[in-house]
C-alpha cells in the first residue's frame, strides 16, 4: 500500500484531488516504480493504484462522469447497461480491497440498477413519445449539474489569484504619522446636554432663570484675558467706541460683575486720577492664607 506521503508529487497531487491530468506525459500514478500515464483502459487496475485512483474521485457522480467520458459517449445517451456493469465492478473491487466505501457509492449503485431494470421493460412507442420520461433523465440531469460545477471549480482555479499569480504591491511609508480624528459635535447636542444639566441642577439648587446676559459673560472673559498679561490697564481702554452705547453698557456691566466676583480690582493713584484695572492680586501670603483656611475648615 502506498501512503500519500511517500508518493512523488504528481501522484500526491492526484490523490489530493487536483484535476485529473489528461496529458499523456504526466504520470497518473506510480505502480511498482513504473509511471502509469493513462487511466486504465479496462477494468484491470493494479491494486496498489486503485486506492490512489479512487481517492482521486469526488464521489460516485465524478466516477460515473469519468467512465462516460472515457468511453466517448454523449452524456445524454448513456449506455446504461454497460456503465452499470463497470460501476458495479469498481464497487466490488473497492470492497475486496477493504477501501472505505462512502455510502454514496452504494446509493448510486442502487440507482443505476433501478434505471437499468426500468429500461428493460417493454414500452409502447406512444408512451415513450408522450409522457413517460426516459428512466435515465434524472441521472443525466444530476451528472450534467455536477459536471458544470466541476468545470466551474476548474475555471475558478484558473482565475489569477493572490499569492499564487498576483501579489499586492506594497511599499513602506516613510515618516508615517499618527492622525487622530476628533469627534464631531453639533450645537444641538451641546444645548440638549445643557438643558439636561440645568433641569437636573434645578432639583438641588435654586438657579435664577432670569435672562442670561451672555454677552456680558463673554465680555467678562475677554476683559480677564485682556488683563492677563498687561498688568494695569487704563479703565477707558476697555471700551470701544465703535461698539456703540450697547457695547459700552455690556462692558461696564461685565466690569461690575467681575468686581463683584472679586476677579478684578480698580486702582486709582489719587483722587480724580485716571482709573486703572488689574486682575485681583492674590493675597500677600497666599500659601499662609490657604493653610489657615484649611485649618479653619477642618
Amino acid at each position, binding site marked *: 500500500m502506498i501512503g500519500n506521503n511517500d508518493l512523488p508529487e504528481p501522484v500526491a*497531487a492526484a490523490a489530493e484531488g487536483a484535476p485529473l491530468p489528461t496529458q499523456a506525459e504526466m504520470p497518473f500514478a506510480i505502480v511498482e516504480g513504473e509511471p502509469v500515464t493513462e487511466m486504465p483502459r479496462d477494468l484491470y487496475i493494479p491494486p496498489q493504484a486503485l486506492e490512489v485512483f479512487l481517492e482521486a474521485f469526488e464521489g460516485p457522480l465524478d466516477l460515473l462522469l469519468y467512465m462516460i467520458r472515457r468511453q466517448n459517449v454523449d452524456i445524454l*445517451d448513456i449506455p446504461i447497461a454497460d456503465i452499470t456493469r463497470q460501476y458495479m465492478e469498481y464497487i466490488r473491487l473497492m470492497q475486496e480491497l477493504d477501501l472505505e466505501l462512502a455510502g454514496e457509492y452504494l446509493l448510486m449503485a442502487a440507482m443505476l440498477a433501478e434505471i437499468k431494470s426500468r429500461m428493460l421493460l417493454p414500452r409502447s412507442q406512444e408512451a415513450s413519445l408522450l409522457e413517460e420520461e426516459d428512466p435515465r433523465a434524472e441521472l443525466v440531469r444530476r451528472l450534467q*449539474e455536477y459536471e458544470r460545477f466541476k468545470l466551474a471549480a476548474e475555471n475558478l482555479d484558473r482565475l489569477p*489569484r*493572490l499569492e499564487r499569480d498576483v*501579489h499586492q504591491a506594497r511599499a513602506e*511609508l516613510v515618516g508615517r504619522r499618527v492622525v487622530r480624528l476628533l469627534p464631531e459635535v453639533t450645537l444641538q447636542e451641546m444645548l440638549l446636554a445643557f438643558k439636561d444639566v440645568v433641569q437636573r441642577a434645578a432639583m438641588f439648587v435654586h438657579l435664577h432663570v432670569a435672562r442670561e446676559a451672555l454677552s456680558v459673560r463673554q465680555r467678562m472673559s475677554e476683559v480677564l484675558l485682556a488683563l492677563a498679561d498687561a498688568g494695569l490697564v487704563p479703565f477707558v481702554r476697555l471700551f470701544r467706541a465703535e461698539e456703540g452705547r450697547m457695547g459700552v453698557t455690556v462692558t461696564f456691566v461685565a466690569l461690575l460683575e467681575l468686581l463683584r466676583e472679586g476677579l478684578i480690582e480698580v486702582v486709582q493713584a489719587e483722587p480724580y486720577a485716571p482709573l486703572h484695572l488689574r486682575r485681583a492680586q492674590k493675597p500677600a501670603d497666599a500659601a499662609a492664607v490657604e493653610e489657615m483656611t484649611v485649618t479653619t475648615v477642618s
Partner: protein
Amino acid sequence: MEQMQLRKVIEAALLAWGESLSVSQLREMFDENERPEEAEVRAALAALAEDCAGRAVELVEVASGWRLQVRAEFALPVSRLWQERPGRYSRALLETLALIAYRQPITRGEIEDVRGVAVNPHIVRTLTERGWIRVVGHREVPGRPELLSTTREFLDYFGLRGLDDLPTLAALRDMDNLGVQLDFGTVMPVPEPAAVAAVAAGDGESAG
C-alpha cells in the same frame, strides 16, 4: 489639487496600504476643503492605470476597491522569494466554493445534492477561516440549516469586482432536444471544446 499630484498621492496610498482602497477611502485622505470629487479620483485612477503600462505593476479594480498588484507575468521569479509555495486547493474545496459562489445563498444539503457526497466539515471551516464564505442566515425548514454565501474577500482574492465577473456557468442540455433514442449501442462523439465554449458563452445564466 492638480491631477498629476492626486495621481501620485493615490499611488503612494495604494502602495503604503498594500491592499485595495475604495474611492471614498481615497477621498478621505484629504481635508474637507481640499477633498477631490469622486470623478476626479476616478480620472486620476484611470490615468494611473495608464501610467502602469509597461511597468511591473498594474492597477486593477476588485470588489472592495482598487489595488496595485504585481503583474502575473512576474509571478514565477517573485514567488521564489517565499520559502513556502502558496497552498493549492483540493477539487473538493474548489467545487464546494464554486457551488457557494454560483448558487448562494446555499445550504450544505444543497451542495451535497449536486456533488453527490457529504460536505466535508473541514472544507467549510477552511473556507470560513480564509474569510471567503460566511453564514448569512438560515433556511426556514426543519433543522434551520445555515445558508452560506461568499464574501468580498473571496472576490478580492480571485481578482473579481463582483459575482458577475465569475466565468459563465456551462449550460445544461436537454435530453428531449437531442431526440434521444433508447438505443444502448449509440455512441455519440464528445463535443469539441470549441462547441462547449460556444454553448457556455450562449448561456445567459447569471452568477448571482
